[in-house]
């Protein structure tokens, strides 16, 4: 495995096409293996979507990328994952710093029960990004604007974030993730609780965010994967079956399991 990691560093990792690289990643929950030897490259400033039937390990893989699995009792990750060429499971790297660089948006919107303003300002504050009030104000406005929420909430910044609609809450969570200025944003089925209009807004947003961020998104909607992503990875029963250009994977899959899934024969 050390060999594999070394080979990866031949080209300059800061400018390589691949923002994150996973090699031979396996995840165990206690005795049960949820992910089997996954190799996946995540392209810089690209949207990579993870698809596959329920329980195949998409969320598990996503949580490996910012070490959210650390929080789960009995979860064990083996293999190498690098961010710009640096091993993220290295003990020299503080997991807190990693999560500031690799942000996450969850399936169910989970705004803090604080005001809209404080929801956004929370991350910058703990990372000391906005020392002065005016800095924080600016970050809040910028993040909300980028998440397409500023116009809707600018008059009620002091109202609780939990009082927003589901779609607004999810955009608030995206704004919250953007506010700490991460390099990668992980999204676990961000639209599954939303109606088609809110979904369209978020898809649009994802497409814009691609300019500045690397995005990995888990989705159950094939159409959504086709619409927003450049790369798609198909998981099945803990295996990464196939990974490639979205266009190619949907029109001309190599593996018959992929074929079966995207044509709706199982899953």
């Amino acid at each position, binding site marked *: 495995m050390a060999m594999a990691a070394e080979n990866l560093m031949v080209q300059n990792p800061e400018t390589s096409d691949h923002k994150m690289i996973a090699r031979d990643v396996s995840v165990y929950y206690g005795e049960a293996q949820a992910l089997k030897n996954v190799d996946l490259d995540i392209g810089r400033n690209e949207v990579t979507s993870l698809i596959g039937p329920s329980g195949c390990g998409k969320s598990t893989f996503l949580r490996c990328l910012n070490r959210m699995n650390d929080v789960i*009792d009995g979860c064990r990750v083996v293999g190498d994952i690098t961010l710009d060429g640096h091993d993220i499971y290295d003990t020299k790297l503080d997991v807190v*710093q990693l999560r500031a660089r690799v*942000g996450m948006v969850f399936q169910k919107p989970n705004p*803090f*029960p604080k005001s809209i303003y404080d929801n956004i300002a929370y991350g910058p504050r703990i990372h000391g990004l906005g020392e002065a009030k005016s800095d924080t104000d600016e970050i809040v406005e910028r993040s909300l604007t980028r998440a397409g929420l500023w116009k809707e909430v600018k008059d009620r910044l002091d109202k609780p974030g939990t009082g927003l609609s589901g779609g607004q809450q999810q955009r608030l969570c995206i704004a919250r993730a953007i506010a700490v200025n991460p390099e990668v944003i992980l999204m676990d089925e961000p639209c599954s609780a939303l109606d088609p209009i809110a979904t369209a807004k978020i898809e649009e947003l994802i497409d814009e965010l691609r300019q500045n961020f690397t995005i990995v998104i888990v989705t159950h909607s094939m159409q959504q994967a086709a619409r927003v992503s450049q790369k798609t990875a198909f998981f099945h029963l803990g295996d990464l079956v196939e990974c490639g250009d979205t266009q190619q994977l949907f029109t001309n899959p190599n593996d018959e399991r992929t074929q079966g899934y995207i044509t709706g024969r199982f899953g």
Partner: protein
Amino acid sequence: MSLLILAATLLLLTLAGYYMGRGRSVAVSGGSTHRLHSRPQYYGVYVALWCGMPSFLLLALWLALEPQIVEMILVSNLPSNILELSEDQKALVINQITHLALGGIVGGNITPEMEAAARDYAAMRQTGFAAMAVLVLCIAIAGLALGRKRIATTLRARNQVETVVSAVMIVASTIAIATTVGIVLSLLFEASRFFTKVPVTDFLFGLQWSPQTALREGQVGGSGAFGMLPLFAGTLLITFIAMCVAVPVGLYSAIYMSEYAGPRMRAVAKPILEVLAGIPTVVYGFFAALTVAPFFRNTGQALSLDVSSESALAAGMVIGIMSIPFVSSLSDDVMNSVPQTLRDGAYALGATKSETIKQVVLPAALPGIVGSVLLAVSRAIGETMIVVMAAGLAANLTANPLEAVTTVTVQIVTLLVGDQEFDSAKTLSAFALGLMLFVVTLTLNVIALRVVRKYREKYD
């Protein structure tokens, strides 16, 4: 004994009513129960209610009224020479007769008239009971028959049963409310009697508490002073010391248990902590008096501090230890109920564990935490036994925790133990103290509720 048999019979009848009702409803529906308005169980309960409710009500009524009625009849039949006796003596004679009738051994002189009356009395009670038993059983059976007869596919059994159940619940809560109101009213009434003897201002702002009033005319030192301030100061001092112990320790152990401890540690630690709440306060009391207070005294001597052998510090510390489980257990529960998704949200932003706890978990759990602290405060304010044993009875107005103080509850106890006249200022002052205590705790609760409402961070 025969009462027990009667009650058991009624219960059996009621149970039988349930099964009959259920069976009957199935029969009426012709086997397809979906044609019934309600599910068969409800028809069962319906018949059981018809059978059990009126008969048990009658039984209860009888138990409540029978002794008075029989005694009235007894009195009206007494020979005139007894009736002419004074009230006190008459009551004594009646008492003797009833004892005689129950087969007890009775002292004093028993006249033949009294024996006759006792026989009558016993007979009367027996026939009365028999008649009542028959009546109650008849009513039960009649109810059963009636209920069963009313069963039809269109009978809205569920709605009727639910009406009865909700009526029962209303009665239960009315009883609770009425009791509270009654207690408050009696406090108010007795306290107002006290205030006719001692001016309100003397009570509220007096700095002296020595409730010994003269029993005899001209006794020395018997004027009495009823200033409540030393007592409330003592209560607040002890409560404050107790909270200084209970809140940090309880809160930290709650945080540890809900956020840091593994499931196995939690499974062991939580019950052990809760055992603390199960120790009787007397045990804490002598622990305070025999271990903690002497310890402080000795330590004080070593540091050449003047610590009295009964100190507010000792009592407050021990009350604090006693209150730890109230804070820790409840806070732990509310922190556990904060959704994991909120913690994940904070972690995903790069918050550390302690930042997550301080800024996300604790604010979300605030109402419950404040509630648990309030519970501990009211326990501390109301605590009597530990204070009696460890803090003494001296009503000193002081803020020095090393001195002996006393509290409101302790004084209420000392005012009311022993033989007392029920209209002396000394006795009545207990009610005034109780009223003030009530007002203070109520105010505390209201303030805390306001605070919580203002600062709570509500998650859905």
